[in-house]
């Protein structure tokens, strides 16, 4: 994005002068240029480098990836069956369980990006949703299942929206950068969570006060399982909620006036203001909706298969951060996020609990996921530029020829 000297005031500016400079505008630029090819290539490159690390440390990368593939249950497509006793089927159900969460945390990041903001606070907003869902799920014991579930989900989603909204509010009023605010809010949520579920904390389980763990969600609030056995952590209907969220994401952005405003502000805040849009209001609103997705993720997880949460679980969870990679890989679109969530869900489960491999241990494979995730996020930032330069050279050459003619 080389600057054109403003002092020239050329009478004929090249019609595609540097884009308005927001990250989402550049990502959109690159999306037009490369379509689906570039995200796929980014992922492939990341896997290649990951494979090189694996090979360099004495393991066979091809076998390792195959074992991860199987661990994720993706080999199910070769022998489909609904019988959950089958390992591949079980693995797949667990992968989809992870995918559910990642779709939602990915959508959280994606939505904020569409409005030109970077929401790194997905993890904290997820926890807030988790905590509220657990509390509502436990405290209202005598409700009928459907209202109980609705109440818990609603409260958790609202909580997530509020948590992110703080950052949006600070940005709109005092211009505080949302990255800093959301990072701080992440850690505040983590510590508050540890306090709530810890020894003597208000939400610690009533049964055994020596264990720093929360109460169990009441049976009336637990989401029905449709594939598998609940006792063995089956796939719950939260999966459909996530799919619905993908659709909702698409519809909100492309079929509502709210989405129109969000996209306009994300692409070009100056033009949006010229158009009469209230930029500040949209910043707060977009962060709120973004947090709502993350809070919903927390609710679905808590009511769907976690049912309780312990102090030691808090640092181990990283679905909020994975959401960043999911959204960026998916170029902040609904379809992209869905596919990215599937990829990372497979990686997440396939490298840890699902992995049974003689080539590589789960601890190594799990960290491999982090490396691949890091590489993908790193490349997203850069490939934008590479493509832009490549494309602008192609654009300028025919124009120069026309001038000379």
């Amino acid at each position, binding site marked *: *994005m*080389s*600057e054109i*000297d403003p002092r020239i005031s050329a009478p004929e500016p090249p019609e595609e002068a540097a884009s308005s400079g927001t*990250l989402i505008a550049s990502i959109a630029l690159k999306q037009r240029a490369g379509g689906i090819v570039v995200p796929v290539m980014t992922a492939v490159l990341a896997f290649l480098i990951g494979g090189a*690390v694996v090979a360099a*440390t004495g393991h066979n990368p091809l076998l390792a990836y195959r074992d991860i593939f199987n661990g994720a249950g993706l080999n199910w497509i070769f022998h489909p069956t609904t019988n959950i006793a089958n390992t591949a089927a079980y693995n797949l159900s667990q992968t989809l369980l992870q995918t559910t969460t990642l779709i939602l945390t990915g959508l959280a990041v994606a939505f904020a990006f569409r409005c030109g903001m*970077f929401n*790194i606070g997905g993890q904290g907003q997820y926890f807030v949703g988790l905590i509220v869902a657990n509390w509502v799920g436990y405290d209202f014991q005598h409700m009928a299942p459907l209202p109980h579930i609705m109440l818990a989900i609603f409260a958790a989603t609202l909580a997530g929206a509020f948590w992110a909204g703080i950052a949006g509010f*600070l940005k709109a009023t*005092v211009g*505080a*950068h949302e*990255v*800093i*605010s959301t*990072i*701080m*809010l992440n*850690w*505040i949520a*983590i*510590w*508050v969570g*540890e*306090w709530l579920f*810890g*020894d*003597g*904390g208000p939400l610690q389980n009533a049964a055994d006060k020596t264990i720093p763990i929360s109460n169990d969600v009441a049976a009336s609030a637990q989401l029905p399982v449709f594939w598998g056995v609940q006792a063995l952590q089956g796939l719950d209907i939260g999966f459909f909620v996530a799919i619905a969220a993908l659709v909702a994401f698409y519809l909100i952005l492309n079929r509502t006036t709210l989405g129109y405003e969000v996209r306009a502000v994300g692409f070009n805040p100056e033009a949006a203001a010229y158009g009469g849009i209230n930029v500040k209001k949209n910043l707060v609103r977009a962060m709120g909706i973004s947090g709502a997705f993350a809070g919903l993720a927390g609710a679905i997880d808590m009511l769907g298969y976690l049912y309780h949460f312990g102090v030691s679980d808090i*640092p181990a969870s990283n679905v909020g*951060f994975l959401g*960043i*990679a999911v959204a*960026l890989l998916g170029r902040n679109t609904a379809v992209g996020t869905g596919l990215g969530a599937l990829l990372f869900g497979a990686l997440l489960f396939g490298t840890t609990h699902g992995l049974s491999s003689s080539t590589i*241990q789960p*601890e*190594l494979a*799990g*960290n*491999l*996921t*982090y*490396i*691949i*995730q*890091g*590489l*993908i*996020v*790193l490349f*997203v*930032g*850069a490939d*934008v*530029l*590479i493509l832009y330069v490549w494309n602008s050279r192609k654009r300028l050459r025919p124009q120069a020829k026309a001038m000379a003619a």
Partner: protein
Amino acid sequence: MSEWTQRLENPVSARLRDPAVSGYAGIVLGVFAGFLAIPPIEARTNTWPVLVGVVAVVLGIWTVTRGRRRLGWGAVAAGIIGAALGILATHSGTGNLEAVFNASLVAQTFAAATPLVFGALAGMFSERSGVVNIGLEGMMLMGAFWGVYGADKGGTWVVGLAVGMLSGGLLALVYAWFAIHLRADQIVGGTAVNFLALGITGYFFFQIYHGNYVPQGVSTIPNVHIPGLSSAGFLGPAIGNLNLLIWVGFATVIVSYIVIFKTPIGLRIRACGEHPRAADTVGINVFLVRYGCVVLSGLLAAAGGVYLSDGFGGGTFNDNMTEGRGFIALAAMIFGNWRPFGAFGAAVLFGFSSAVALRLQVYSASASTLFNVLPYVLTLIAVAGVIGRTVPPAADGKPYAKQ
């Protein structure tokens, strides 16, 4: 003009009526309200913290009405928080209080603060040259692991320190290339760096050490015993036996201040961070300066990490050992307004908070958690501009493009 108003006009009273003065005074009093109830003063009734807290609140409101709104609300907040903490303290047993707040707390504070000090200085150098570095956490983590690895395989802690710092510097170099050369988004790049570091250190931790604490006998960074300071009294337990890197940290703060504000290279670094085009037009190589500062930030952050594992930690490493300290360091840098001594002060404050939290864990888990949250809340308040304005370098985070 009457004599009465004439007296009001004299310079001293004019100064005192400046809302900034009352605002800062309110903040100081608010802190003092909490301080009253802990040793050495150890007031035992609620009256004192409440009284002082109320004065702070009043000063805060006065400041708000005089136009310095953010400062005023900060004083009000300080007054309320200070009074609340003071009241809490008066309800604890004196024995408990004295067990928590004693001279060795000072030592623990410095120990907890040192990774933050290194991290905050690292972030400061990078951002002063105009490059945002969110990847401090990752660079610190690299230092923590590879520092222990180096000490183990290399035999001495010196090798460990060198290897650790080098690993941070290399990661920073990769980040610098993406941020400066490819002009990638720096926040995205920094986040990526953190993931990478987590994965790399975790991977090799299991690959080489199979997830166990590093074998016994790894050379650790020694403590500096100051002769002549008795182990009783105050100074002895406080500073008599601090780790070497803690003292190096102090020194680095001073050196950083001198470099940034008293040398030509520091002037150029600051120019690149404020107005890179102006720097370019007087012939400064902005890219080179930025590369240098980012790599330096990697070296420093990693040094903080090496201290964490090989100094403070006694030669062990855990998965994700830094646990967010890189972000607290970032917060300390912001809270300290991108200045070395300010960042140092913030780091010590946050270190104090962590140290108290650790000690309180025995007595009250909830109070312990509260103190852990304090750094983040304070930074949030700082970012909202309550305590003065946090002003980053003007060109911070914007990639520079030559014509």
